[in-house]
């Protein structure tokens, strides 16, 4: 996440997105189409993970883009467009969850539970064997199901961090939370996901014991 080439690519993407947003605001239909095509899947992915209802997620994604186009005149091009759009999507999904009375209360301090070595739970990145690849795919399937068991705030943090590759500061901006809270949410979410992997008998720790 912190290598220079990745940061450079993200900066270029952000610049291109801001240019597209400005062109769309000035009335370019092509820019509007490109914005929709570029962000429809990430926006849908975030909302679908949050509301866990594919049909409702499509409706809310559509609402998100309608709100985005209506508010495009207020967009500040010096800010990252994706963060601005994800914030609209997140708020739209959270409003829908509140209407369904899904609890969004702050997590308790005792959620930390027993300490887990997160690094030891994960597969060894250096391994590139077919067995390691099969193991990683199996773990991905477990994680896919495990994400849906997380509380909504944790799901949002995981998706924004690991699917959309947002920085911690950007996630805080999108969710309207303090930076420390975002880090806490992500840590707890990873711990719960690691527990699912361990319970499924997956991960380096369960296969060959703790790493040195």
């Amino acid at each position: 996440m912190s290598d220079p080439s990745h940061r450079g690519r993200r900066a270029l993407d952000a610049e291109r997105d801001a240019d597209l947003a400005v062109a769309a605001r000035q009335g370019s239909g092509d820019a509007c189409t490109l914005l929709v095509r570029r962000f429809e899947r990430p926006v849908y992915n975030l909302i679908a993970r949050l509301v866990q209802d594919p049909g409702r997620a499509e409706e809310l994604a559509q609402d998100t883009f309608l709100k985005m186009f209506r508010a495009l005149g207020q967009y500040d091009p010096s800010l990252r467009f994706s963060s601005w759009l994800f914030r609209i999507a997140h708020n739209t999904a959270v409003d829908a969850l509140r209407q369904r009375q899904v609890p969004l209360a702050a997590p308790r301090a005792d959620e930390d539970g027993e300490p887990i070595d997160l690094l030891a739970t994960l597969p060894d990145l250096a391994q590139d064997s077919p067995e390691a690849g099969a193991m990683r795919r199996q773990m991905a399937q477990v994680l896919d199901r495990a994400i849906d068991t997380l509380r909504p705030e944790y799901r949002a943090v995981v998706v924004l961090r690991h699917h959309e590759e947002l920085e911690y500061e950007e996630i805080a901006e999108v969710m309207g939370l303090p930076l420390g809270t975002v880090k806490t949410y992500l840590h707890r979410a990873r711990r719960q996901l690691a527990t699912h992997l361990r319970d499924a008998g997956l991960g380096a720790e369960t296969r060959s014991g703790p790493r040195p």
Partner: protein
Amino acid sequence: MPSRVPDPGDRVERAWQSLMAEVPRQRPSADFTARLLAATRAEWPQRAGMRAEVAVTAGVVAGAAALTLGPVLVIAALFVFDTGAAVEAVARSFVWLVGWLTAGVSIWEVFGRVGRIVATAMTSPAGTVVLIGGIFTAWLALAGLSRVMPIEQGDV
């Protein structure tokens, strides 16, 4: 040159990022893009020039439609309804149209224009000669008429 010791936090980040990259994303239905584009198109910002073009085009189309449909409707009315009433309605509409077209014309604006033309004519030598010639001719005509009129009145 000392090698950088990897931060365990960075290794955790990279390990999770690598693993989560293989977790499938939620995907919308196949026709979602088309539906989304169609549903949001009405909210897309439009160019200011384009808005003016749309307004002018709509006005021209509406005017053309009115000019085309108007006579057709009048002719249809002549056949369908009472002919006398239809003719009266057409006449009234012309009166209304003339009144509407001349509503913006001010008598003072007409006087102003005439005054400006006269003033412009008088400020040039040729214009002054023509104007004085015109006035002299008119005076001669009036004088001649005043001599002729009493004789004619006496004859009557």
